[in-house]
């Protein structure tokens, strides 16, 4: 007790004797821990690593502080987590379309398999409670290849971003709505969880209300993110972090059965990666539901994208280490009613996405879009554009800004185009009239590649065998209006006959160990 009296004095001397600060001091300097007891009503001292004699000594010394700690525990997140009830968005969701033969194979585990399982492989179990910050971060640092960091049911409160840099680690919770990593009180770290190692599996937990991105993996290989939810719980807001689930510069990326809600850029964003599968995910109330950016080889299937500004985006941007996005397949997705007003911070590329966009392809080559259901978008069900139509200057000589070899077939479209959104939607409507058709192409082509006024056959846009529940599949090319000095002079065409034909099917992405 003497020492704690001393603590009080010290803080009073410093003029910092507020309860919260003292608590913080106690918590972080003395490593005292509190967690809910079994009846979920009272708090007891005792932390994740209370198995040592020393730890018990502290607990006993701390008992006289029980009263204060009870109060602190209650105010600092020690109260039992409310039942993880589905968000309103979740309840309103429509089910994903029936899984196609492509998607109903069992999801085998992409194990973080080292060549030989290390004998020292261990499981570290960390229950929720106070000072999970230190306990979880330490487990992530002290893990070895083959280790499992097991998080339990409940809410974990973090003040700092977490990071993992050990290969072959599994971070596992008890369920997408049962184990919640809450970053509402985050004071530092631009992510909730940042992974820079290989052969990592993240599964069965949620990361909510981070100040920056939810989960980022960078420079990783064989990364699996499964049954993970990244959410900003206050609904779509510009002050939300940018990306929910954010693998970048990685190889062999599998994101499956995940949920992303509220990202002020993208719910699931895979950037500058190779061999990517995003499947059976649900994305809602993000600016972009799913964005595949500057990727080489990506499959997006079985996903539901609704209530975003734009459902699924396939972009390529200049000035980046990996460019020329190509070989992207979007199939068997339900993309509908993505009409949430664009809430992206102004300088982000997705701020240019018109509210009410289903699928948008920009500056990629070899994109196959098939068997999707795409409907109910205020601007258009599908936008195909070159980077020039952003009107941003291109300074990168290596960048290829055109959308080429786009193959759109066997999709089912529905009503759209009744209320074109944003500056770009307005421009398109001014040229093409309203309502806008299912598929809008900006009509910008690489003139240097034209032969007799046409692109080589392997580089054209093909649209075939689609249907529209409202009647005919509709289409417009606005003839490069975006970059003409006088847009009114653009040659607008609604003629699909220019786009008859097909391209060879793109090979599915194969990730070692992942079911096709």
């Amino acid at each position: 007790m003497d020492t704690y009296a001393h603590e009080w004095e010290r803080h009073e001397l410093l003029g910092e004797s507020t309860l919260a600060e003292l608590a913080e001091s106690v918590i972080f300097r003395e490593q005292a821990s509190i967690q809910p007891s079994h009846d979920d009503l009272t708090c007891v001292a005792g932390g994740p690593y209370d198995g040592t004699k020393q730890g018990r000594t502290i607990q006993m010394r701390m008992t006289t502080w029980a009263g204060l700690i009870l109060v602190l525990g209650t105010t600092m997140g020690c109260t039992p987590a409310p039942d993880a009830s589905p968000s309103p968005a979740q309840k309103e969701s429509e089910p994903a379309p029936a899984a196609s033969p492509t998607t109903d194979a069992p999801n085998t585990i992409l194990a973080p398999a080292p060549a030989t399982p290390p004998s020292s492989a261990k499981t570290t179990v960390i229950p929720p409670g106070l000072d999970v910050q230190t306990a979880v971060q330490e487990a992530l640092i002290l893990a070895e290849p083959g280790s499992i960091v097991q998080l339990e049911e409940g809410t974990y409160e973090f003040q700092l971003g977490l990071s993992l840099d050990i290969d072959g680690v599994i971070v596992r919770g008890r369920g997408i709505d049962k184990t919640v990593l809450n970053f509402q009180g985050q004071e530092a770290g631009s992510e909730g969880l940042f992974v820079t190692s290989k052969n990592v599996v993240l599964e069965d937990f949620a990361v909510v209300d981070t100040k920056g991105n939810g989960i980022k993996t960078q420079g990783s290989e064989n990364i699996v993110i499964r049954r993970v939810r990244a959410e900003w719980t206050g609904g779509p807001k510009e002050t939300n972090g940018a990306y929910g689930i954010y693998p970048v510069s990685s190889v062999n990326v599998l994101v499956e059965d995940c949920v992303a809600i509220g990202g002020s850029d993208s719910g699931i964003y895979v950037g500058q990666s190779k061999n990517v599968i995003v499947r059976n995910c649900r994305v809602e109330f993000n600016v972009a539901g799913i964005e595949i950016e500057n990727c080489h080889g990506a499959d997006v299937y079985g996903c539901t994208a609704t209530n975003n500004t734009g459902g699924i985006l396939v972009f390529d941007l200049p000035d980046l280490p990996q460019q020329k996005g190509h070989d992207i397949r979007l199939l068997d997705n339900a993309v509908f009613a993505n009409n949430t007003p664009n809430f992206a911070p102004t300088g982000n590329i997705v701020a240019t996405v018109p509210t009410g966009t289903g699928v948008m392809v920009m500056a990629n080559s070899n994109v196959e879009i098939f068997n999707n259901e795409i409907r109910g978008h205020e601007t258009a069900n599908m936008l195909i554009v070159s980077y020039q139509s952003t009107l941003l200057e291109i300074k990168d000589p290596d960048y290829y800004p055109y959308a080429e070899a786009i193959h759109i077939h066997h999709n089912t479209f529905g009503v759209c185009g009744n209320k074109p959104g944003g500056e770009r939607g307005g421009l398109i409507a001014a040229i093409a009239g309203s309502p806008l058709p299912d598929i809008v192409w900006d009509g910008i082509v690489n003139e240097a590649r034209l032969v007799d006024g046409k692109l080589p056959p392997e580089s054209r846009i093909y649209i075939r065998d689609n249907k529209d529940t409202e009647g005919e599949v509709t289409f417009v090319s606005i003839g490069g209006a975006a970059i003409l000095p006088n847009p009114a002079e653009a040659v607008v065409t609604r003629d699909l006959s220019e786009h008859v034909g097909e391209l060879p099917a793109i090979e599915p992405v194969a990730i070692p160990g992942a079911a096709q």
Partner: protein
Amino acid sequence: MNTFRDTLWAGIAGMCFCALCHAAGPAGKAGFEAPPPEWLSAYDLFADLARQIPSDGVMPYDLSALLFSDYAVKHRFVWMPPGTSATYQDYDVFEFPVGTILVKTFAFPRDARRPEEGEQLVETRLLVRTKATWKMYPYVWNEQGTDARLALAGARVPVRWVHTDGAVRSMQFNVPNVNQCKHCHIGGGAPLPAGPKARYLNMDYAYPAGAENQLVYWIRTGRLTGLADPATAPKAPDWDDPNSGTLDERARTYLDINCAHCHSPGGLAYTSGLDLRFDQTTPMRYGVLKSPVAAGRGASIGQYDIVPGDPDKSILLYRLTTTDPGVRMPTVGRSLEHDEGVELIREWIADMAAPKQTN
């Protein structure tokens, strides 16, 4: 009370470092290949740990550049095994021999206007050159300032000081965890020190025997090879001294030391394509009219990293200014605004010629 506190620290060790609890680490500087000892004192780097007086053979040094760390004062030392030396490089960090320990202690003066009043030691970071790689270990000082304990998961330490303007400041100092150490200390994909470069070392240091240029001293004492004539070594301007270089040179120097460890090829932030190294000569590459990538809310104030002549529309300046954890830069090591640095960058951007109209 000390007894109790010792018990307490032991308890902390038991709770936090159970898997790496080495009761007594391999004592002395020679144990560099072993797991890190629990206490800083075990390295035998200091004759007087609390007063930061180095042992024989441990050489103090300083850099002309400031890597801003929430106004912490830094004490730097280097130890190289006897008979070894660092190898000079013009631009990059010197090549240090296996066994080198770079030591950086972070402290807060009780009163920044009166250094003689002493300081609160907060953290000592070690970069240890093993055969395979640089290892990084953060040690957090105990409250008495008598020793520092390994804190692999980092820590938050309350600090309080009287600032240069006489105002009392207080904050939670974030000691980075070992992963975060790597975020900054990386070069070409491998861990690397950031500071000991010729251009930052090329200045006088007040050695006990008198002031002497550090490069000259290192060469004279056998700690540096590969530089025939110190007069030919590059010298960075002092970002804070207008007499030492042009505004552009000083601003680029500030960005180099504070940002380029991530914002350079191989660095952690190179996914955005931004390159803030001093020797990057293409303005777009260091941010001029460069569109942000994955900047999130950092891009809420404009379209470009740097808009010449318009600091308030420049994302780069905004991210140096804000303390919002989801937006601020650097993401590690700063939670306060660096007023003087921000002022320099503001002046630099304001002074740039506005872009020519292209039509």
